[in-house]
């Protein structure tokens, strides 16, 4: 039994998600990622249950573990009560802790995800903050969103929202005291430290590549190598 496997087993999600896998493939059969990426959750579970650290390390450095969409559809189907999705989540956490996430294209996306989502949480109290959701970065949000963005305060008023205002309601301004509590939670549960590590690893990489932070963000936001796909 290897050290990486031991660290994985400390994760509650792995303890809950890994019983003995019989390689039946019910997870892969309906997995959204297995259809649209080069990905087979069954094989991931099998690799982890073999407890071979060399193979686990390879996984932690690979793009493979970042393909899952965490829909957890696999959980319903497994006849052995495994949860491939939870195992993936544990692998991702370990990949971040060990720094291995920086070795794959999909893993390096962590920089931007950590930055944007947690900026929203710590500054506004939301994962998604309507005002920060920009049409330019989200053309698929449609021309109707372009209109919403342009008239966002009017639209929220019209639709019973309370955008950035006091008191309860949709997209209200969450009091600073509550945001401070979120920050304290981040500090004592390891989120602040994790975000700092992800940030430093990304900035170091940007420097290596001779890119500004903005250029680096643009790169990881848009790049998509054909190797992820099936044909």
């Amino acid at each position: 039994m290897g050290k990486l496997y031991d660290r994985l087993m400390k994760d509650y999600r792995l303890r809950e998600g890994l019983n003995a896998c019989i390689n039946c493939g019910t997870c892969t059969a309906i997995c959204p990622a297995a259809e649209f990426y080069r990905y087979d959750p069954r094989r991931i579970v099998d690799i982890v249950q073999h407890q071979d650290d060399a193979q686990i390390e390879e996984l932690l450095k690979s793009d493979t573990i970042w393909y899952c969409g965490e829909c957890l559809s696999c959980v319903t189907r497994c006849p052995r009560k495994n949860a491939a999705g939870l195992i993936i989540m544990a692998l991702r956490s370990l990949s971040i802790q060990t720094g291995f996430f920086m070795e794959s294209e999909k893993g390096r996306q962590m920089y931007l995800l950590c930055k944007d989502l947690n900026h929203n949480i710590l500054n506004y109290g939301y994962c998604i903050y309507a005002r920060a959701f920009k049409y330019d970065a989200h053309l698929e949000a449609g021309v109707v969103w372009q209109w919403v963005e342009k008239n966002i305060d009017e639209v929220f008023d019209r639709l019973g929202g309370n955008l950035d205002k006091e008191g309860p309601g949709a997209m209200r301004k969450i009091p600073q005291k509550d945001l401070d509590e979120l920050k304290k939670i981040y500090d004592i549960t390891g989120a602040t430290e994790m975000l700092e590590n992800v940030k430093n690893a990304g900035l170091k990489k940007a420097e290596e590549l001779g890119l500004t932070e903005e250029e680096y963000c643009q790169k990881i936001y848009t790049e998509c190598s054909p190797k992820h796909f099936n044909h």
Partner: protein
Amino acid sequence: MIDFGFSFSPSSRINLDKADKEKFLSLAALEPDVLKCMACGSCSASCTAGAFEDTSVRKAILSLQNGLSDDAVKLLNHCMLCGKCTMVCPRGINTRHLILSIQKIYGK
């Protein structure tokens, strides 16, 4: 047309409804033993080329059954016809002969 910056991903799903059965039946007429494969992997395990290239009789037969004949031909491209797989096949399939027939029917 708008360039959204991403596009559809190809599906990996094998659609058995679309597997070309006719060609496979003509192979089976010539090589009835192709039906006897039980996917044990003895051929792949003993394959000389398989140690260096993605070569496998087992996978080639499976690809043909799944209607993926291009994959099947590719999986046999590096075969040197050494015949080790024929020696080890527990179902007595003349794999060497089978490989030649597959190349004949599916090869370009």
